[in-house]
């Protein structure tokens, strides 16, 4: 009797999952848009700048279509239940990013600079590498829980990645920030990869420690204070973030890692006190470092009064940059609808116009409408990631998904906010849009992991194993 009821319980619990549509065809339809829109934009730029359809249009369209197609087929084969929005969104952002990078390659003003190199062909190569990594993740990472085994290796890996730019002879100091390394002529931003590896470590670590962190605490003035020894890890992460800030003078990366950790800690423990702690610590860290680090002070100055910064740079005072003001002018000159692709002057920003500041080109040439669309696409990626975390059935998957999506959201906020003058500028790049190999490759991997988790989460539960007892009951007839 009891076994019969057991069986029926099993059935009711899985009814919701049975017949969940895989949504692969939706993804394919969206991907068509994600390829057609950038191709159209590409033609648009060519017509605006050279009065002719760019000669590379067909190969670009085929290339992007090929990348999207490979991605789609791999998802269909290896992650059939994955979220259908993530791949098209990433493809679209990557595609229009390529178009705008190519558009900035055509700028005579940028070509006049001695450091000019054509960025679009390289970015196309990086995008292909990124999709390749995406494929590798989906093909070889059959189950994201495997990553759980590498919790502590990830920690070591992340630390190494973070410290690499400080190694003499390897690290590069580019305009005051030490976040690049140079290997065999390629510059790599290890922080972009560290983001993912750290998320894996935090997810694995917090999954094990969450109960201790959540329950063993004392109540003080209405909030739960963690025990001293449980406080250890958060302090370690905090110190590492501060060290990044001090030695690599990179406010963005530092904020990103610490913010990601606090988010994951909060989700793991469900204790609001961690958020309060996190905010206090990051505030203390930021203020403390800003009090003696001139690089950070200067960024804050430039944020508070970009016009003064512009004028100082015009007077030739060393250490000041006109870029913040130029970016604001670009946004303002774009207005509501923008000048149209290829018809703006965002290249006045000069250095990093196609990487850190690429959003300003969107602002000027596609206007308020275009930038809002871009921001909403990022918002959509983040919310699909959070949705994946909600749907995930295992705590590790939940933590990893929320960590990656949270980091993605923070990165978008920190970069876009910096370029638009909402917060001080930091040296990070818009995921997928901006020129930069590390960024685009790492973000494709990030999307790959999210797709893997979402596939597991949305996959219908396997049919219950035949119950020997049930067999027995079947046999015995009244």
């Amino acid at each position, binding site marked *: 009797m009891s076994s019969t009821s057991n069986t029926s319980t099993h059935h009711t619990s899985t009814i919701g999952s049975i017949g969940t549509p895989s949504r692969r065809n939706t993804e394919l339809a969206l991907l068509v848009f994600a390829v057609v829109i950038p191709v159209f934009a590409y033609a648009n730029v060519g017509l605006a700048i050279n009065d002719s359809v760019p000669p590379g249009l067909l190969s670009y369209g085929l290339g992007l279509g090929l990348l999207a197609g490979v991605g789609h087929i791999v998802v269909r084969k290896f992650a059939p239940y994955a979220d259908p929005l993530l791949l098209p969104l990433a493809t679209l952002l990557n595609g229009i990013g390529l178009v705008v990078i190519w558009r900035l390659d055509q700028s005579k003003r940028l070509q006049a600079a001695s450091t000019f190199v054509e960025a679009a062909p390289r970015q196309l190569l990086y995008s292909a590498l990124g999709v390749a990594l995406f494929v590798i993740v989906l093909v070889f990472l059959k189950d994201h829980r495997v990553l759980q085994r590498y919790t502590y290796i990830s920690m070591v890996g992340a630390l190494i990645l973070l410290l690499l730019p400080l190694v003499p002879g390897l690290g590069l100091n580019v305009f005051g920030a030490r976040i690049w390394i140079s290997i065999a002529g390629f510059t790599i931003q290890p922080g972009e990869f560290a983001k993912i590896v750290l998320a894996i470590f935090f997810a694995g670590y917090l999954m094990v420690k969450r109960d201790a962190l959540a329950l063993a605490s004392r109540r003080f003035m209405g909030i739960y204070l963690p025990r001293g020894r449980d406080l250890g890890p958060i302090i370690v992460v905090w110190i590492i973030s501060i060290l990044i800030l001090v030695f690599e003078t990179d406010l963005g990366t530092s904020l990103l890692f610490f913010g990601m950790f606090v988010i994951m800690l909060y*989700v793991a423990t469900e204790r609001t006190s961690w958020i309060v702690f996190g905010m206090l610590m990051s505030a203390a860290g930021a203020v403390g470092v800003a009090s003696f680090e001139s690089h950070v002070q200067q960024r804050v100055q430039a944020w508070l009064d970009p016009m003064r910064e512009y004028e100082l740079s015009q007077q030739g005072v060393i250490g000041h940059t006109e870029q913040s003001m130029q970016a604001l002018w670009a946004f*303002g000159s774009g207005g509501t609808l923008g000048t149209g692709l290829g018809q703006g002057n965002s290249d006045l920003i000069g250095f990093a116009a196609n990487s850190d500041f690429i959003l300003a080109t969107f602002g000027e040439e596609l206007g308020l409408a275009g930038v809002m669309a871009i921001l909403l696409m990022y918002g959509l990626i983040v*919310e699909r990631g959070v949705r994946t975390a909600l749907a995930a059935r295992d705590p590790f998957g939940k933590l990893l998904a929320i960590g990656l999506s949270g980091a993605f959201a923070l990165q978008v906020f920190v970069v876009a906010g910096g370029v638009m003058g909402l917060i001080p500028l930091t040296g990070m790049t818009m995921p997928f849009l901006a020129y930069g190999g590390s960024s685009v490759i790492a973000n494709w991997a990030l999307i790959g992991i999210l797709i893997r988790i979402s596939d597991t989460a949305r996959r219908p539960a396997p049919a219950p194993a035949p119950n020997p007892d049930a067999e027995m009951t079947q046999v015995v007839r009244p």
Partner: protein
Amino acid sequence: MNKPLRRIAIFCGLLVLALLIRDNWIQYVQADSLKDDTKNRRVAIARYATPRGDIIVDGEPITGSTKTNGDDFNDFEYKRTYKDGAMWAPVTGYASQAFGATQLESIEDGILTGNDDRLFFRRTLDMITGKKQEGGNVVTTLSAAAQKAAYKGLLKQGKGAVAAIDPETGAILALASTPSYDPSTFAGNSTKVDGEAWTKLQKKNNPDDPMQNRALREIYPPGSTFKVVTAAAALEHGVVDSADEKTDSPLPYTLPDTTTELKNEGNIPCKNATLREALRVSCNTVFGKLGVDVGKEDMLETAKKFGFNEEQFVPIRSSASIFPEKMDRPQTALSSIGQFETATTPLQMAMVASAVANDGTLMKPYMVDKLQAPSLDVIEQTDPEKMSEPLSEKNAQILQSIMETVVEKGTGTNAQINESGVTVGGKTGTAQRGVDNSENPYAWFISYAKLDDGSSPVAVAVVVEDESANRDDISGGGLAAPIARDVMKAVIDSKK
């Protein structure tokens, strides 16, 4: 774990929302102020993105536009060119990619670039039809012949300025200044070519200050030409009633409240001279005393009616000429013969001559006849406007007859035009400079011409500041009067 996840979802949503709000702030609320910020290079890029409209004299453009080319990358597509740039510089000012615009080029920039609000409809139409924005034209009142005569005459004499006006309308006919500069030499954006040309023209590198618009901006002591104003004041305020009654003028004349004697240049018949005789030989004693008799308040009133102590906008700003407001009686006497602090622009003295020629009515001087849209439709037409009436018609005619005597058989014989039907009235001036006249004086001449139908086509003021000339040679009649004559003749001939 789902409750904190939902909160994180909201938090991420808020991050995106903050970005959206910020984006609306900079791209909608602040968009216009960022876009039109003069430091925003796009403003300059737009200004030079299309050929500028032209400044037109006698139906012919005196400006042009050419595609910028050079080795360096230049984001300004078109640059300004000028025909006879140096001659027209006091009229046009300059429009340089590197150094901005001044004077007419700056004041009418909206029309010339096509950005003016009055061209909005057309601009929108062009945008829809895909045409490039075009600039409108500025049609000036100037006369090419008069300007040429003025500039040529000045070049012969070195430094100086000429302003000529049509007394009946106030239309400016000539506005010349030497030494001048060619604004096309620094119209571009190249540090090497344009930057160097610019540097060379600056006052600190060039003591002659070629970029000064002397006709409008330099104020000179007017010397004896100011006696026309004093004569007008004496007639208007009843101190003298006619040209030929004797005045009560002692010789020598001791300045009131002092023991200083006011002297005349040379031994001339000034004792109790009539107004006509006094102006013909230019008696300091007579006009000094007349000024005191009129009184400083009434002198000031007449001077102000002629336009003194006020900037004129033609529409280029002209410096305010000075007739001192605070002075004692001896200073009043000196001011009334164009000394002490009295100082005027050439334009101001041309206005004085024009008011006399126009039977006492001073017309507001202007140099822009009309503004044209690119389609040549008239956007704005300047109508002649009465500015004031410094003297009555009767008194003006008395003064005309006196000034005509000056040219006929006085100090101004060099301005005579020997054509039938043309009468010229004028006044010379030799403004003393420096302590005890140690520096070379300025040679002045103001005059007007009348035709036998009673109309008056031109009034002119000429000043020559020639530091190299022999002091004795400098006199308004010798240096300045021939230039005035040529300018007047050019205007009269071009009217035929």
